């Protein structure tokens, strides 16, 4: 049973670090969301048959799904329920940003069974938020959390970022402490990445001593970022969160089932412009541009990007299983690896595993091969060995 992801490619305004496909609603024609929903409706009708028994989880991400207005949201949810079977108890997450979350929108979501909400807080300090071009304030984030709880959400994730321009250890600690005061069930902590093509990348590619509006906005270096991460790992453990994946923390039982699906190598459907699907070792990506996406679907064609389909080789599939699975605290399941690929990963990767033996980089526990957590923040050099 695949999981289902639906991409909503709209934001009020894109953040300066974001490389995802998204339209700024401030600069788009009014009917663009209708064009999107028209296309999506066709795609849902086509793809529903790929999940005859329903989906294992639902994640509506973006962009900013909560940037849609009430009418659009209602239409979105109605379409979804018409074409996909959402079994009881299945995790259904929607993402959203403070400033776009009203009680009436939350009421719609609850009505349609959204049971988990992931909120893009990033920081509780306005200065840091504006340094990366986020539109909302810390106050709006606090209000949004309040509304989510009031609306009845009992499984909330807060996204927080470290490594923001001008951020220091004290800022970061304050943000974590405030986040903890709201007792979220789940936290995602992401290091800021400078992705090519983003305004932030352009701003910092020449160096990191930029002043914006007279404020020092030095980018924390890798060492400071590592310290921020390490501090948070310790702190969150103390108060009962499990660091179950490189960047993710949850109270026991609140791990994100949808994302676990990716890391464990399960199939997934990704709908909407730019959505990525992976079924039976074939991965494809939809066209990003909304009009092209919609017109293809209207004309009865697949909305797949040119050269957007990739047939994964056995080697690539195994490599992905390793690089994704080793992100997890539990590690890679040796039994499912054997079931899926017909071989014992301890044989296939014997050389790699042995070359790191003295440094105790890998550990076998029960049916799992795990990465020593000491190395999870410097894992790329190790993960390279599997690709």
């Amino acid at each position: 049973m695949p999981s289902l992801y639906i991409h909503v490619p709209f934001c009020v305004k894109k953040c300066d670090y974001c490389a995802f496909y998204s339209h700024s609603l401030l600069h788009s024609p009014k009917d663009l969301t209708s064009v999107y929903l028209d296309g999506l409706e066709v795609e849902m009708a086509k793809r529903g048959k790929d999940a005859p028994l329903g989906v294992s989880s639902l994640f509506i991400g973006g962009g900013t799904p909560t940037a849609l207005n009430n009418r659009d949201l209602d239409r979105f949810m109605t379409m979804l329920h018409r074409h996909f079977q959402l079994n009881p108890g299945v995790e259904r997450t929607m993402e959203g940003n403070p400033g776009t979350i009203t009680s009436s929108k939350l009421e719609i979501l609850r009505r349609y069974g959204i049971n988990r909400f992931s909120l893009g807080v990033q920081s509780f300090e306005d200065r840091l938020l504006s340094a990366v071009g986020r539109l909302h304030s810390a106050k709006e984030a606090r209000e949004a959390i309040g509304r989510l709880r009031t609306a009845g959400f009992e499984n909330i994730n807060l996204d927080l970022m470290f490594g923001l321009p001008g951020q220091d250890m004290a800022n970061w600690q304050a943000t974590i402490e405030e986040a903890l005061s709201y007792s979220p069930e789940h936290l995602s902590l992401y290091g800021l990445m400078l992705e090519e093509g983003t305004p932030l990348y352009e701003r910092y590619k020449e160096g990191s001593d930029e002043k914006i509006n007279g404020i020092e906005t030095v980018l924390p270096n890798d060492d400071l970022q590592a310290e921020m991460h390490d501090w948070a790992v310790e702190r969150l453990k103390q108060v009962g969160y499990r660091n179950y994946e490189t960047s993710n923390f949850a109270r026991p039982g609140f791990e994100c089932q949808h994302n676990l699906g990716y890391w464990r190598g399960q199939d997934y459907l990704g709908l909407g412009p730019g959505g990525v699907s992976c079924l039976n070792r074939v991965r494809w990506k939809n066209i990003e541009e909304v009009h092209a996406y919609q017109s293809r679907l209207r004309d009865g064609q697949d909305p797949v990007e040119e050269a957007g389909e990739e047939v994964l080789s056995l080697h690539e599939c195994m490599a992905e299983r390793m690089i994704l699975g080793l992100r997890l605290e539990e590690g890679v399941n040796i039994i499912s690896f054997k079931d899926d690929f017909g071989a014992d990963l301890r044989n296939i990767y014997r050389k790699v595993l042995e070359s790191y033996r003295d440094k105790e980089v890998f550990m076998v526990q029960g049916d799992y091969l795990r990465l020593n957590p000491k190395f999870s923040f410097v894992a790329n050099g190790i993960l390279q060995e599997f690709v």
Partner: protein
Amino acid sequence: MAQASQHIRNFSIIAHIDHGKSTLADRLIEYTGALSKREMEAQVLDSMDLERERGITIKLQAVQLSYKAKDGEVYELNLIDTPGHVDFTYEVSRSLAACEGALLVVDAVQGIEAQTLANVYLALENDLELISVINKIDLPSAEPERVKEEIEEVIGLDASEAILASAKTGIGIEEILERVVTTVPAPQGDDEAPLKALIFDSKFDAYKGAISYVRIVEGRVAKGTTMKMMATGKVFEVTEVGVFAPAMRIVEELKAGQVGFIAASIKNVKDTQVGDTITDAENSADKPLPGYRKATPMVFCGLYPVDSSDYNRMRDSLEKLHLNDASLVFEPETSVALGFGFRCGFLGLLHMEIIQERLEREYDLNLITTAPSVIYKVHTLKGEVISIDNPSNLPPIESIVSIEEPVVKATILVPAEYVGTIMELNQEKRGTYFTMDYVSKSRVKLIYELPLSEIVFDYFDQLKSRTKGYASLDYELSGYKETDLVKIDVLLNGEMVDALSFIIHRAKSYHRGRKLVEKLRGIIPRQMFEIPIQSVIGNKVIARETVSAMRKDVLSKCYGGDISRKRKLLEKQKVGKKRMKQVGNVAIPQDAFMAVLKIDD
């Protein structure tokens, strides 16, 4: 037929890099109609891409021009091109020896440079008639009068008749050709005497074998002649003779005075050594032409394939380059750190860079180059003298009585205001002052003895940067001198990396050892584990730095839409890491092995 040689003129062009030699040569070819404008595009004397990019001639060439002079007669003009770099001084001297005259081309803005001067001396040694040409007079900043003065004062030539030219715009080209006809002597030489042909270059052709580029000094040669190389004694049967028109054109025979080529199905360019004399085996000349010298490499370095599976391909590539370049020497070498590779010998640093670049570009090899070394003569307790071209082969200190290093006689031409700067530089570089002369009111010629190892290190860069590019340098090997030298080894993570060892004067050893580990700390990327870097003399650690362990190297976000991209990112990083050399647990970037050259003293 003495008549024929009366219409031959053999000449070359002497010029500093950038003073317009190649453009002038092109213009002469074009003017005499040896090639059409369209053909010129593809065919210029500098035929290698590298030469065109660097604006220098590496491999010399020759061309025959047919020129109808104002006296109504048609002349055969042979232009022999010369390489414009100190590494190739010997090759230049042999080209000049094949001529009766030379164009001395001086840039109307920059004036005479050390390299020009050195080649002028070579020309005068060979009794060449010099024709002064002041080039680039079309430039607004041209100062032909000042340059004339310099020519008179520095070289002692009468510059009143110097030709003002612009190879770029074509000014003065006809005048140059006329002057070649009227002032360069026709070649002397008896074409009935036993054959004496001077080899001034050679080239390997896949069909014809090694081809000798020759000037026939005496006698004649034709297909079927049994020829003998006088230096090596080897005998071959001539299969073809011809001229450069500029493409090779077969002729019946070559006679005294002419310039052309001889092919004799020779398998190896080693048998066609520049400077050697070809004679007729059945009617041998009694003695060879003077000036022959075996090409001797002065600078050595280790060349290793980054990917050890490229070793055989690398050997094939070196062999192919060697086919055309007998002065490149190489032999297999093994390094603990770098695996299997080759120790290669070069005429100089430029020659070394050229070979490296050609291996990488033309043969698509990914190479690691170790810092260049000179040949040291080591006197051991046993009374032996060992030549060491690789620092890691230096015997243990206890068994060494003394070490000698090669020294050169360096000639530096520099504007007078930089004399102090040069003296300071030469002092730092352990130079010994010989003489200083004012060659004109504003320019000075300094002669120093300098250790070759200092020149190999960074002398030329320093010279250029400290004089804003105004100083020029020429040098020749002058001998060996006993010096207090030590070997510095480098340990990474406690393991000695033999390819990083170098030999240095004791007085500079601590400083250089410290600077090197600092430099390496900057070059070696942080890795999963901490890496100590130490430089040691014998067992004694003289400097230490640490590359701290990497703290962050992670894909922070990785969900359904990112997976392919992230996997490809890891693949790319893996390729990047493969370009580094793995020594024990440490990945070392290629340029680390040249780091010792990039230290500012």
